[in-house]
């Protein structure tokens, strides 16, 4: 004969949330997503970008932007990855990144890190002077002009570029390209020497 039915069995009091963290049943803890800037040094070799981006997509990390480029060492490339996740997801993303064989080093940058993005914005060319004036307001400059169009370059934070793109709407924005953020820690700290 089978033992006690499910509802007659010894039961514990506790509970965990969906992230496997024990919670006080009265005060359920939920972790709000936050933005994190991950900076990774990787071996500069074919396939590494696919490996990193594949990791982020298959693990369902919510990625905002990912930039990659060479460093002063020709064997190494550096990636800047912006993700928005609840705390445990950010920790997981760092650990999973570190696990990839071509990844040399991963760190999460302080919120105060230097963070820049470049945008090229192509707008209607009928009022070049007005376009220039707006570009200057955002510390940008026109880098190409034709009878029909002006292309403006802006560098800055995501918010600044968002605002610039908005401001240029008055001239009929035809095309925008943005690089996504590149970032470095402020001060003398580098990824090589901090642990």
């Amino acid at each position, binding site marked *: 004969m089978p033992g006690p039915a499910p509802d007659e069995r010894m039961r*514990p*009091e506790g*509970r965990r949330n969906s992230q*496997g963290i*024990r919670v006080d049943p009265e005060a359920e803890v939920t972790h709000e997503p936050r933005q994190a800037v991950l900076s990774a040094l990787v*071996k500069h070799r074919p396939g590494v970008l696919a490996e990193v981006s594949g990791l982020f997509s298959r693990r369902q990390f919510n990625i905002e932007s990912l930039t990659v480029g060479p460093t002063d060492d020709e064997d190494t490339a550096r990636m800047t990855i912006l993700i928005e996740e609840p705390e*445990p997801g950010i920790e997981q993303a760092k650990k999973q990144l570190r696990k990839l*064989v071509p990844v040399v080093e991963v760190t999460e940058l302080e919120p105060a890190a230097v963070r820049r993005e470049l945008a090229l914005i192509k707008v209607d060319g009928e009022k070049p002077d007005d376009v220039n004036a707006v570009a200057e307001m955002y510390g940008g400059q026109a880098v190409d002009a034709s009878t029909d169009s002006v292309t403006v370059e802006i560098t800055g934070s995501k918010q600044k570029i968002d605002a610039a793109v908005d401001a240029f709407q008055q001239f009929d924005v035809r095309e925008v390209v943005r690089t996504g953020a590149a970032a470095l820690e402020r001060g003398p700290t580098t990824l090589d020497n901090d642990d």
Partner: protein
Amino acid sequence: MSERASVPRAEEQPDEEHADEAEPVSTGAQSVVRALENAGTEFVFGVQGGAIMPVYDALYDSDITHVTMAHEQGASHAADAYGIVTGDPGVCFATSGPGATNLVTGIADASMDSDPVIALTGQVPTDFVGNDAFQETDTVGITQPITKESYFASHSDTVGDDVSEAFALADSGRQGPTLVDLPKDVTQGETEVEPKAPETPDTYEVQEEADDAAVQEAAEALADADRPVILSGGGVIKAEASSALREFAKEYEIPVITTMPGIGSFPEDHELSLEWAGMHGTGYANMAITNTDCMLAIGTRFDDRLTGGVDSFAPDADIVHVDIDPAEISKNVYADYPLIGDARKVLRQLFDAMPRAPAADEWREQCQDWKEEYPMEYDTPDDEPLKPQYVVERFSEVTPDDTIVCTGVGQHQMWASQFWEYTEPRTWVSSHGLGTMGYGVPAAIGAKLAAPDQEVVCFDGDGSFLMTVQGLSVAVRENLDITYVILNNEAVGMVRQWQDGFYEGRRMASEYPWIPQFDKLAEAFGARGFRLEDYGEVEETIQAARDYDGPSVIDAHIDPGENVFPMVPSGGDNGLFALEEDHLEML
């Protein structure tokens, strides 16, 4: 060195004299084979083909034994089983395109279970890559998410190093599969460069010992517990930590639960054993998991088949999590005391750090009571059709402790894990994380070659068996003494069980009344075939199959109505397992 059951491994030292005699390499392919020889490879499982042909040609002059499989999926599963049984990487070969894609299932399987496997795939010549050439696929791209690393060999001078590195990587830290894709021009190309000794890449770091202060804290938490348990995962076996675990558990008298891949890490006939927990684990293990206040979890990744819904998993427990892979810490279940390191070393550290044994007499009694309350039982009135559990139990009773059990995936796999008594590590060879039907037939081949002196039995389902039945031809050709037992319910039974339980009995595509007569099929392949229907014939059929020197297949016609219990419904609460069909409705 492996902790494998009883039989000492054949000496693996490369034959010095032979090594001296070895001709210098002259092609990339020879360098590939040399790298395998240097790493101690005994067997390679594979299938020939155009793009891999230069490597096979180099193998012609090697002492490595090549086992030609009937399908590449079988090659990767055989290599996987070899890796589980010996602890050393299993190696499989396939040609480019379809050969490589056929390997994929086995590689994914190895990845989910952290089994050491090396896959070497042929590729079209470098100049053709990217042109959709004949039999081209992006093998590195396809396999990247399911390997520790996939290499594209770019040059004849370095291809041997790639293979050496892949070998070292598969076998170090948390084991797992690696792949090297070998363009034909690279293997055909001339080189005199001998491969380097196997070494992991410089970016790959493994922490072997846990931080002492963290160990101390964890030990104190465990010693303070009123209701402690140890949860022993597959990582304990991989780290050769089973004896350390036994010593630890016995010294501090802590009940031990295993995960399914951890079966064999602790003897199931020991008083402290609660066997395994999870969806179809024992009632007593699931009660203990649910009610523990401190869990020492070692080498487990808290798979959802183990935890059920995480909200109800060990909800009162402080969790001490020991793992060699930092990314497993707090991935699914939050670890209060993370200990990163090799399971065997960390167990020794913990052993020394324990201030005292936990005062848990009452708890141990409680665990014993649960064994009485929720025994693993089934009905066996003689007039009913044969019960699968009976076949498994009888078989377990007559075989030596070091018998290796392989399985397919489904109900039969659950019965084979529930009703066989496992006492030794590396005797349970099954597909856990991926749950691959068709795993059993080729896995048994890999297991038998890995441990020729141990008995090998494979419990299979009719559905799983049919998926890789062609592997029988290999078992016959190699004259492997394997007993395949098909627990034949003329259905993909596990699916049917779910349909009956959760889809109002709408048995869409789960009944297989058209399956072949497996005893005759076995005979057609050149194996021995037996048909088993009655209780009275069980013992003699098992005996006859065991006595036959070569592969035999017992087609056991079991009660098609039999289902697997206990059961925790998917995402459910481990403590609320159903012991019978009626309970499912209460949950």
